[in-house]
């Protein structure tokens, strides 16, 4: 029987498939640690306001020219291909963080990585992983309580807006938009406040148009649709009534199954064609009975109905995409219509002004003065890569802001929350009995690693500064934080560096859950890879 032999000469049969592998204990754990830490190290240098960006290039020969320049942890991690299972878990938490709160994607990966780095040391000291986990759980609870304690929320709108602006500035400061962050922070806060608490970013449309500079980006108070108005229609309308439809305007298919046209003479063909036209005409008439000034359809509009409507002085916009119609309907307060038999029941949308305008060289249609929630952000910039990254940064900021609007709690940034939590964790480590205390201390070290990395990335003397910060906070100066411009400890309240409580909380949860999960593993079984045909 095939198989290797053990020391005594017993034949060991192959239990798993030929290419499968099975690693146990130290080997398995080492693999997890190495993999997870390596992934965390990849994104580590992007952390903080002075973090660096990465260039991502596709492995596909044909797509080599497509590159992405980014600072966003989730984007980087999503694009790298890894084989190490522990690394995959880290990538997955970053993805979840992105989906759940939109920002802090780098932080989770780095924090989980740091936790595992500490765990590696502890296991080398022969502390059982389960003991480490028990300690971490105590530590995490203490950290969360502290985080809750140091967070605050402003009830009145004026100071809340200031909080939001601070958060937006802080989030954007680590991104490409740093230079124009004031501009973009205002922009993002305005956009989010328009939502009035609705957690749906669909209402904010981001339009990218290459050209101009970042400063030229603006928030359109109305809604911008990247479509053109059909020829022969008016280009500007004031206080129009707008009908939004999702209906075929090429020709109505007969939906009854199995029907087909069979005639015996040319004349009859002509008749049917006439009937078809008549049907379309009737449909147009029905639509016109709603008395719209503007007709927007999700689907194609053929020339014939288009011409019929243009004759009536109706502005026609065809091929508005799926997203577009939905957003438009909510902006304008219109129903999306598919049948047109009851003009009295159907609600049409309204706004103050619809006009065609130019952004750069492209024509777009702008709907302004429509008191709804939606708005559009037009991003300008010198190139596609810049715009893509700007969109990602802005998206992050918007996500964080919507989260803050829902859960109004805010904490100080600049490493203030991490250090405060680390201090609280250290505190319980002193009173905890047994080996768990070592794990609790390790948790605190991992928390402190975050501001340290931020300092390192900015090129400051991290050990010195972080220790200073620690002593400041420990001696009661609860607003102290890192100033990444001058490389010193300063007051976060006056600097206006705030972060969203929800993001921090989620990051703490996901990172410790993932680290725990990886640490619990003592064996990795890899199945034989599936054979691909060809």
């Amino acid at each position, binding site marked *: 029987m*095939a198989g290797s032999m053990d020391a005594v000469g*017993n*034949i*060991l*049969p*192959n*239990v*798993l498939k030929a290419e*499968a592998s099975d690693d146990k204990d130290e080997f398995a754990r080492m693999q*997890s640690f190495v993999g997870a830490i390596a992934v965390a190290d990849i994104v580590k240098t992007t952390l903080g306001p002075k973090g660096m960006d990465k260039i991502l290039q596709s492995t596909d020969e044909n797509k080599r020219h497509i590159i992405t320049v980014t600072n966003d942890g989730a984007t980087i991690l999503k694009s790298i291909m890894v084989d190490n*299972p*522990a690394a995959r*878990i880290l990538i997955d*938490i970053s*993805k*979840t963080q*992105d*989906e*759940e*709160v939109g920002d802090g994607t780098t932080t989770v990966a780095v924090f989980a990585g740091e936790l595992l780095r500490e765990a590696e040391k502890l296991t080398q000291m022969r502390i*059982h992983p389960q003991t480490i986990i028990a300690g971490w759980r105590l530590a995490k609870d203490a950290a969360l309580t502290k985080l809750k304690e140091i967070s605050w929320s402003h009830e009145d709108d004026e100071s809340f807006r200031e909080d939001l602006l601070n958060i937006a500035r802080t989030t954007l400061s680590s991104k490409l938009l740093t230079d124009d962050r004031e501009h973009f922070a205002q922009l993002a806060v305005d956009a989010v406040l328009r939502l009035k608490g609705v957690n*749906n*970013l669909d209402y904010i449309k981001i339009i990218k148009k290459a050209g101009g500079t970042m400063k030229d980006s603006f928030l359109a108070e109305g809604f911008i649709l990247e479509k053109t108005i059909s020829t022969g229609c008016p280009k500007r309308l004031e206080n129009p009534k707008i009908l939004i439809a999702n209906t075929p305007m090429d020709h*109505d298919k*007969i*939906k*009854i199954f*199995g029907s*087909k*046209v*069979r005639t015996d003479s040319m004349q*009859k063909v002509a*008749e*049917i064609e*006439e009937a*078809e036209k008549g*049907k379309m005409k009737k449909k147009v008439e029905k639509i016109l009975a709603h008395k719209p000034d503007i007709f927007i359809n999700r689907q194609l509009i053929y020339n014939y109905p288009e011409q019929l409507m243009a004759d009536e002085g109706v502005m026609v916009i065809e091929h508005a995409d799926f997203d577009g119609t939905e957003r438009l*309907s*909510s902006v304008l307060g219109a*129903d*999306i219509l*598919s*049948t047109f038999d009851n003009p009295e029941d159907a609600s049409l949308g309204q706004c103050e002004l619809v006009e065609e305008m130019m952004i750069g060289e492209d024509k777009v249609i702008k709907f302004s003065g429509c008191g709804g929630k939606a708005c559009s952000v037009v991003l300008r910039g010198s190139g596609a890569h810049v715009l893509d990254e700007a969109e990602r940064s802005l998206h992050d900021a918007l*996500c964080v802001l919507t989260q803050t609007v829902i859960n109004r709690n805010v904490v100080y940034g600049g490493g203030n929350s991490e250090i405060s939590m680390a201090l609280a964790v250290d505190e319980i480590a002193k009173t905890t009995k047994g080996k768990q205390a070592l794990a609790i201390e390790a948790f605190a070290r991992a928390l402190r690693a975050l501001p340290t990395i931020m300092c390192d990335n900015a090129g400051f003397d991290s050990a010195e500064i972080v220790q200073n910060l620690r002593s400041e906070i420990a001696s009661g100066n609860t607003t102290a934080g890192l100033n990444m411009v001058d490389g010193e400890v300063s007051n976060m309240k006056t600097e206006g560096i705030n972060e969203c409580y929800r993001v921090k909380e989620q990051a703490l*949860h*996901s*990172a410790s*859950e*993932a680290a725990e*999960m990886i640490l*619990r*593993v003592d*064996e*990795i*079984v*890899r*199945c*034989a*890879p*599936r054979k691909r045909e060809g």
Partner: protein
Amino acid sequence: MSLVFDENGRPFVILRDQDKKQRVKGLEAHKANIIAARTVANLLKTSLGPKGMDKMLVSPDGDVVVSNDGATIMEQMEVEHQTAKLLVELSKSQDNEIGDGTTGVVVLAGALLEQAQALLDKGIHPLKIADGFEKACEMAVDRVENIATELDIEAHEHEELIKCAMTALGSKVVSKQKRKLAEIAVNAVLSVADMERRDVNLDLIKLVGKTGGSLEDTSFIDGIVIDKEFSHPQMEKEVKDAKICILTCPFEPPKLKTKHNLEIKNKDDYEKLYEIEQKYFTDMVKSVKDSGANLVLCQWGFDDEANHLLMHNKLPSVRWVGGVEIELIAIATGGRIIPRFQEITPEKLGNAGHVKEVNFGTTNEKMIVIEECSNSKAVTILTRGGNKMIVAEALRCLHDAICVVRNMIKNHKIVPGGGASELSASIYIQEEADKIETIEQYSVRGFAEALEEIPLALATNSGYDAMQYVSDLKEQQVKSGNPYYGVDAMNTGNNQMIEEGIYESVMSKKQQLQLSTQVVKMILKIDDVIAPSEYA
């Protein structure tokens, strides 16, 4: 493999292509099989108990699964060896039958095989060993039944059930939230349990996982969650006192099953057809509306026109609802599944107090929650967690816990956990073994030793000096005559299992003993393995 020769020294073909096959016979086959099976069992040994470790499994496509559940690990491992596969089947059948104890059953089988190997070395015939094991298994089952106690599951608001579920969850990654998850599991089972028949239909408990949030956000919903959204973005997002029309027919003109041709010959035909088509849609929507329904769930899709008509008539609707979900909803809301529009009547509508669409996270994912159903038989557990793997594992854990609770309702009898039952059975068998006259005595004793493997593994995983610890336990059990001393894996300082609330259902324990003995017997009976050679 050596060829067989006849009396004249010519090679002799027994199996077709025999040089391409490999064959192991006799004692060698036994040993090879045992080693293979033990390799698998050893893999699971470290997962046993509350301090057990997890395994990380990488599937052929590179997906990662992290699990502590024996059945899942075995299934994902893609074991190739024939006898090892038997063990995979073993944990699977424990999973199907009981739902928990899938690791224990494999570890026990491994321990039995280890003993069998030693007995084989002594020269005892495999069948004798098998018979001895069989006999010992009966004794063990008897003993387990003897030490079992009845549990009052209703006492203290089902506190005992919660404890049981907590024991099952204690060994998993979710152990931090075990109290909460146990309560959820017990709640879920009790809401669907049929206490008179002592039966629980697990189909009525739906487990839904959604990545995001943390394990603490896992919630119990007294109703149903479907991973869908309302078909038209402008429909009402919330319906109170919903009357639900459950349809399994599409909002489309009917399609005849018979082959037919519909010919349009002239203008009139064309126009008539158009009218009829329009009428179909309005009639359909009207028949729904007339029945008094204010919510439509459809198994099929409907096109834009129908969609708009529904919206226009203030009928929020959901399309493409899965078949299983449709059935669940029908059961929960007391509605009937309606296959044709002609058959819609007010009596057939289902009732639910509250139906709403919920948003998750930043990616605009929506789910529909149906609560306060009139029949309220179906419930849902919505599991959240930091990443995909943890949600998947949490779902498996909850499934285990639910099974455990169900078993308790089926059979109120319990035995102590923490290896105490095995130890007590082992002691009992050791005593009885000496009274057996044949050489089966040895194999019966072997069985007793194999049983000790469970507390040993538990003690090892919990970081004790296993040998010392288990011998102490044994001494305590024998001296006090109390079979409830077990491994104090959580290090609470008390190893009285029942006091600590660590127990398992007697059904599960019996099943474990019987299943593993059966498999071991089966493996012992094999004395010839013929397999196509890898080198052919």
